[in-house]
């Protein structure tokens, strides 16, 4: 164990001890914050997966990804308006709406993201490394601009379609748990599990892993690189799309620039878990969600950003490969 690992474990240990102290002082509050943090973290995990997959395969920090996430909530809200739904009571119409809106929005986002890759990243694949980074930032501004033109700077309301209110909420040992909290965590878990199966079992998943490892060698083995990269963007956007609607249904308000902060936090999660590592991104999302929730409650919301990014720097200094990452040789 090197000195860096020592530093990392000391830091993690101190944090855990402080949290444990809080858990003893006020277990109910602790558990409550834990539940909310878990729900936030599940959404961060969904977005983080897109960052980590894209980075793993083409080493690009895809700044537009957070805005793909937000755009999906905007499109979701627009589509829900076509259905007869009720925000007050849980109805059959709500189920139908959600069952249709989820896959449709995910597909739309997938197509949009593949389009972004085709237009903004593929032509620059052999250009100087900073060029695609700038187009990624440009695409991020473009997507935010589209949402800004669409609805202006005001917040947009997403109907509260998930079951809520009496009968769908319960107190377990004084801790409030709603159906929404459970739904968010379960939905994210199912999507992550599906992704893991896809990456590990399917032929395309294998192609993705191979391309991430060595692009030239994969090409020599007959893998269509362009198709594989496009598929990576497609799947990343499916997850971000699902994350966006889930966010909208959970919090019920969105703004055009939501993706910037969420994207940065999700990206931090991806780095935290070990960038390029899929289970790592999911775990990183959960941990960052929890850390943010604890920091909101125990330190104060205005310090959360400092805490999250401070942790990011500490992790990179002490353990650059992240929680689950493996040592990668410099290319």
């Amino acid at each position, binding site marked *: 164990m090197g000195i860096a690992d020592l530093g990392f474990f000391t830091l993690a240990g101190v944090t855990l001890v402080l949290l444990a102290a809080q858990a003893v002082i006020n277990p109910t509050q602790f558990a409550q914050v834990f539940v909310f943090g878990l729900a936030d973290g599940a959404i961060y995990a969904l977005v983080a997966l897109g960052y980590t997959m894209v980075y793993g395969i083409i080493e690009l920090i895809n700044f537009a990804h957070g805005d793909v996430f937000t755009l999906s909530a905007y499109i979701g809200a627009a589509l829900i308006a076509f259905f007869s739904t009720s925000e007050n009571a849980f109805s059959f119409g709500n189920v139908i709406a959600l069952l249709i809106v989820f896959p449709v929005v995910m597909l739309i986002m997938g197509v949009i993201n593949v389009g972004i890759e085709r237009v903004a990243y593929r032509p620059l694949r052999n250009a100087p490394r900073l060029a695609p980074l700038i187009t990624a930032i440009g695409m991020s501004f473009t997507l935010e601009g589209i949402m800004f033109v669409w609805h202006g700077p005001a917040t947009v309301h997403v109907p509260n379609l998930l079951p809520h209110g009496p009968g769908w909420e319960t107190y377990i040992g004084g801790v409030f748990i709603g159906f929404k909290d459970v739904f968010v965590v379960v939905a994210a878990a199912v999507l992550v599990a599906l992704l893991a199966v896809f990456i590990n079992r399917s032929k395309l998943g294998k192609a993705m892993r191979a391309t991430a490892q060595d692009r030239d060698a994969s090409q020599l083995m007959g893998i269509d690189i362009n198709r594989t990269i496009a598929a990576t963007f497609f799947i990343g956007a499916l997850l971000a799309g699902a994350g966006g609607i889930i966010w909208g249904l959970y919090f019920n308000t969105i703004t055009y620039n939501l993706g*910037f902060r969420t994207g940065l936090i999700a990206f931090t999660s991806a780095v935290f878990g070990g960038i390029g590592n899929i289970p790592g991104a999911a775990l990183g999302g959960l941990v960052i969600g929890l850390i943010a929730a604890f920091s909101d409650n125990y330190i104060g919301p205005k310090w959360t950003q400092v805490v999250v990014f401070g942790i990011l720097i500490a992790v990179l200094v002490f353990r650059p490969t992240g929680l689950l990452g493996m040592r990668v040789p410099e290319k």
Partner: protein
Amino acid sequence: MIARLRLRERLRDRDNAVYAILLILALIWPLATIYASDSTFLITQAGHAGTWVLLAIGLNVVVGFAGLLDLGYAAFFAIGAYTYALFASDQLGSSPAHHSFHLPFWVMIFASMFVAAAFGAILGFPTLRLRGDYLAIVTLGFGEIVPQLFYNIDQWTGGINAIGNIDHPALPFWVTGPWAGDSNVALVRNFDFGFDPVAYYVLIVILIIVAVILVNNLYRSRLGRAWMAIREDEVAAAAMGINTVSTKLLAFAIGASFSGFAGAYYGANIGLVSPDSFLFVVSVTVLVMVVLGGMGNISGVIVGALIIYFLLYNVLPALPSTVESLAKAVGLGALNQQNGEWPGLAGAAQRLQFLLYGLILVLMMLLRPQGIFPSRVREQELKHSGPVEDEAVVEQAHA
């Protein structure tokens, strides 16, 4: 050998031509704009644009020369600006320190520079061992933390209320003349910069010229060659005996010091420093200026900074009123009225600005991924391979 000389001549030609044009432009700018527009507004703007040019020159050292991606450059800008603002205003009087400082600008500009450089070194020391992309992420995190910190420690910095009434630079004497709108050339004693745009303009032009000379010399020095060696291949550079960590640390600290420099000037010029002025967008904008201008090439970076500034602060803000008058001219004035969901043509154009900026960034990068005036050395590397590349490097080493 002859081919090499010719290459050298061409190399000097283009960049020197750009410098010459910029210098002439800078010299005639105050007179020309005063006579053309009868106001000093364009000079004020040029003074602001100069801040960005300084920032771009500094970031170019980090990104263009040493190849280290810095996504939190605005943090050092903020540190420089706050260093000046705290020690040259009444702010600290109402802080727990209960004593306000009014140190002269000419001292503080160097203090800001050193403080920013120190923070660059503090951040760089543990993180510069990391691979390139991780460094980008660390700097991104740092860039997010610093403005938030200035918000949070509001008993010292005023937080969201910002620091206002910052001292202006003063000089024992100053020359005024027709270029500043006065009729006669005259010597002014005990000159206070106040809000005199021409004085700030002269100051920033001098600062930029000094910066360009400094950076150009650095580029040609042993250190500059070490930076480029690290940029091209870190392992090979280390094998050649370059201490990669301290060389990178120097790039980081020197880059940060320019931004501290720019920060002090910014604080004095605007007279107000608020955490909002140093967000991620600022870091990105400076990076865009560097990449668009042509990484590693100082004259290109200056041009890139001026183009992006002009785009962001002149073209896009002028869009709503231009569109409005255009619609009136072609008989579509009805579109200008606000009507239900429709925010009016000016409102719509206002909303479009962000979208347009994004599209312009994407288009510019797709059309010219290497930048407008790429560094000649890199251009050769991209175009050819093998012997030509060697020659270019040798050329550089002898220059």
